[in-house]
């Protein structure tokens, strides 16, 4: 009897180190996410004009047709975006990771670019190409006499969102695919499976951690994204509704925060569901030594098909960047398929100021990315490898950051930390480290999901072997777990880094001076005037190239470490 109890106890106990990590992470999330957000969002639970607690606002939410319609619209758009993003991402991921494919690294990088579309400029460029009077439609109208409503209404949002966020799936699935022992594939081929069936039955299910990580991010991100619908002037979705309410002066009503709360609830539910799908499944494929990670050679026909598919997808997903590039060299581009003329002047105008922005961006984004992979890795480890009570709460708390609008977080930071000052009187909230923390909190979900997926694919026995040879948990993590999940960590870092590099809403609230501003802020300043559009685009191009170079570098590292893992052949 007592023995049984001890057995149980042993199972649930954790090492002091793990406890310390849990407490640290909890403290971090509390200090930089939950408390600041709560200082703003608690309004949702009060009666307007008083501070009486009430739930009547939530009742109002469900009684209001606009909100209910917005809710279902958001669900529709998010679900459909996941479908389309999957269709864009899977071919790229499979072709570049499971086959010997020239330019795989380049494609991985290019396929990643949509994520680093800076605010405003991306939408402007998209409108110029696909808008109702964009290049494509003008040409269609001219030659065929009809137009296609790419960017109109909910389906327009789906179109733009799936192009924008499919890299979440691409990068996570790619990483998962890289982890699959080639013996898994060989065994299936040996039993007569090939092509799409092989993919559907073996490869894809084994890459499920990565896919679910990516797909759930897409779903939640699209659900919580306000910028794209607003830029397409779709207002009857949930996130735009929240934003419009929260940011309109004189509308200090609780409904904005009620919507935020609902966004958070839906996000957490979606994350929970994606984890629940995977519960009880095994994905680690390293068995008995491991067969290595072979890449198949493609036959001619396959190669042609593959290159065709890749080119098509890339052309589509990179169209905003193509538009951006054109815009940055354009003199005037108005109601015409192509700009009226080309110039370098836009670059000339930004080149001087951009260096400070670039420097700041690199510092902030890489610090934020670093914090994210550290936290994300730690949370993933706690959730997947320990039985500490409350570990799932860490996961969900971190994920809720996706649903908290940047403005809300920014205001929360000011509210929480402006009053706290350094000895010399500088408010804590004005330090640029606060901006870094805000960025890292906002991008933590990306890194977390990537790390989570990567860890699911590591066979526990590899860790056991290390412990057996005398490595304690910490050393095992450092020497075995970290190297093995390097791909996932890098994937997480790259996503966090690059999206932090172009984040605006919290930045706008927290930035204190031009000299501390990142590139997104610079973009914002340019994009507020007609004359600033060209320079803004030029700055956008610089931002994209900058982040792309960093992305390429990390793909290079992933690729090399994979080679080191020893591919057969």
């Amino acid at each position, binding site marked *: 009897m007592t*023995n*049984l109890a*001890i*057995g149980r106890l*042993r*199972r649930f106990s954790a*090492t002091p180190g793990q406890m310390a990590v849990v407490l640290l992470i909890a403290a971090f999330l509390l200090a930089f996410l939950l408390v600041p957000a709560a200082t703003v969002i608690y309004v949702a639970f009060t009666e307007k004009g008083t501070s009486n607690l009430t739930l009547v606002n939530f009742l109002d939410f469900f009684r209001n047709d606009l909100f209910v319609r917005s809710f279902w619209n958001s669900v529709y758009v998010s679900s459909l975006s996941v479908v389309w993003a999957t269709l864009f991402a899977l071919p790229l991921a499979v072709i570049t990771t499971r086959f010997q494919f020239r330019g795989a690294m380049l494609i991985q990088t290019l396929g990643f670019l949509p994520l680093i579309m800076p605010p405003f400029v991306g939408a402007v460029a998209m409108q110029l190409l696909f808008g109702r009077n964009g290049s494509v439609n003008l040409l269609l109208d001219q030659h065929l006499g009809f137009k296609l409503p790419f960017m109109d209404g909910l389906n327009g949002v789906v179109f733009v969102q799936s192009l924008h966020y499919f890299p979440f799936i691409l990068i996570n699935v790619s990483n998962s695919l890289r982890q699959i022992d080639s013996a898994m594939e060989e065994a299936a081929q040996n039993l007569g499976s090939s092509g799409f069936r092989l993919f559907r039955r073996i490869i894809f299910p084994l890459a499920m951690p990565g896919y679910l990580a990516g797909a759930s991010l897409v779903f939640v991100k699209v659900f919580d994204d306000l910028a794209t619908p607003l830029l397409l002037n779709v207002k009857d979705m949930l996130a735009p509704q929240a934003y419009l309410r929260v940011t309109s002066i004189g509308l200090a009503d609780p409904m904005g925060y009620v919507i935020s709360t609902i966004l958070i609830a839906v996000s957490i539910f979606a994350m929970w569901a994606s984890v629940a799908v995977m519960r009880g499944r095994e994905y680690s494929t*390293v*068995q*008995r*030594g*491991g*067969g*290595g*990670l072979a890449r198949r050679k493609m036959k001619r026909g396959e190669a042609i098909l593959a290159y065709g598919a890749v080119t098509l997808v890339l052309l589509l997903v990179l169209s905003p960047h193509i538009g951006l590039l054109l815009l940055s060299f354009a003199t005037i581009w108005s109601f015409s398929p192509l700009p009226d003329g080309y110039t370098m002047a836009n670059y000339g105008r930004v080149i001087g100021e951009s260096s400070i922005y670039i420097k700041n961006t690199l510092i902030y984004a890489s610090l934020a990315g670093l914090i994210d992979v550290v936290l994300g890795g730690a949370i993933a480890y706690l959730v997947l490898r320990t039985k500490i009570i409350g570990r799932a709460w860490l996961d969900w708390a971190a994920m809720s950051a996706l649903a908290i609008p940047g403005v809300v977080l920014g205001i929360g930071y000011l509210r929480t930390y402006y009053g706290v000052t350094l000895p010399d009187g500088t408010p804590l909230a004005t330090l640029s480290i606060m901006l870094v923390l805000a960025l890292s909190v906002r991008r933590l979900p990306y890194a977390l999901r990537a790390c989570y997926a990567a860890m699911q694919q590591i*066979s526990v*026995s*590899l860790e*056991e*072997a*290390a*412990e*057996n*040879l*005398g*490595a*304690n*948990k910490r*050393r*095992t993590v450092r*020497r*075995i777990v970290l*190297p*093995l999940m390097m791909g996932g960590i890098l994937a997480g870092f790259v996503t966090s880094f690059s999206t932090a590099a172009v984040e605006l809403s919290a930045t706008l609230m927290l930035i204190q001076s031009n000299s501390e501003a990142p590139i997104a802020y610079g973009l914002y300043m340019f994009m507020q005037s007609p004359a600033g559009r060209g320079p803004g685009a030029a700055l956008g191009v610089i931002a994209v190239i900058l982040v792309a170079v960093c992305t390429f570098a990390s793909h290079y590292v992933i690729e090399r*470490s994979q080679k*080191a*893992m*020893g*591919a*057969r052949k």
Partner: protein
Amino acid sequence: MAQTRDGAAVAGARKIEITNVNVHYGELHVLKDINLEIQPGEFFAFLGPSGCGKTTLLRLIAGFNNASSGDVRVGGQDILAMPPWKRDVGMVFQSYALWPHLSVARNVAFGLEERKLPRDEVARRVKAALELVGMGHLADRRPSQLSGGQQQRVAVARTIAIEPKVLLLDEPLSNLDAKMRVQVRRELRDLQQRLNLTTIFVTHDQEEANAICDRIAVFGDGRIQQVGRPMDLYERPASLFVANFLGTANILDGELVTVDGKRLFKVTDTISVPVPDGVTISPGTRLVFRPQHASLEDAGGQGVRLPGRVSNIEFLGASVRYGVMVGTSEVLIDVPFQSGASVRTVGADVNVLLPSDCMLWLAE
């Protein structure tokens, strides 16, 4: 006879005491009331059919499973509450668990580095361990570039390199060829003797267990069926299960009849075996004998003769195994194979000659 150690505790060697251990995987009761005492410095084997819980017990000792009840002490210390890395219990995993991102040498060096040994000491011991398993020349390969047997040898080298006080070997030689297996197990035995390690060896090769182990525990169905020295187990199995599991055994069913005041074990209507005095026959008791203890000649000699017909012939290398139908059961008889010696053919009528001191009377 196999050389057996006298079991005297040498300084440093650890005793393993397992008391009343039960292990569950969820609902599944995998280990049931295991009690076992392994002497310091002993070379101990676990034998048992596939899936009977051998690995589970090793993993418990190494710290990767939880006991639902019971105690495990190593060197007098309760280790169940200890984390794996403090136990100084080296384990060779059945699945190898080699790290794909590290070269062979770095795999082997891992445990030594964890012990913060000086660099040259690490290099020396990695080299020694790899040489020991014949893998010195492949130190720079990655695990995925090795053959199955080579991977297995790296797994062995990795664990013995750290010279743990207790060594758990989970089928460490299963993928090696006979020559290599003999060589590595000799080295293991030498190492064990030299360093005075308490060693548990899981194997499916009974010859192997007999050849190098001091004692053997036979597992069956999550329980320990019998513990003893190899020859004792072979000669005096405690149950049908053990007799059957350890080497090939012929088992004849029958019933006790008394004819003319003499007790007979009636196998078929025409075949009966006299039961020696002092043997109790209860329902379920069978007559058991080993193939090589019987012979086929009808030449003289004490013992029982069972008439039969050759039904199958298998060449085992050093001997020929005949299947002989005795009544409705086939019994196997091994006859040493001499080059040029005449071999009986299928269908030939023979007598199975059974020396009375080789007959075992066992119940389930």
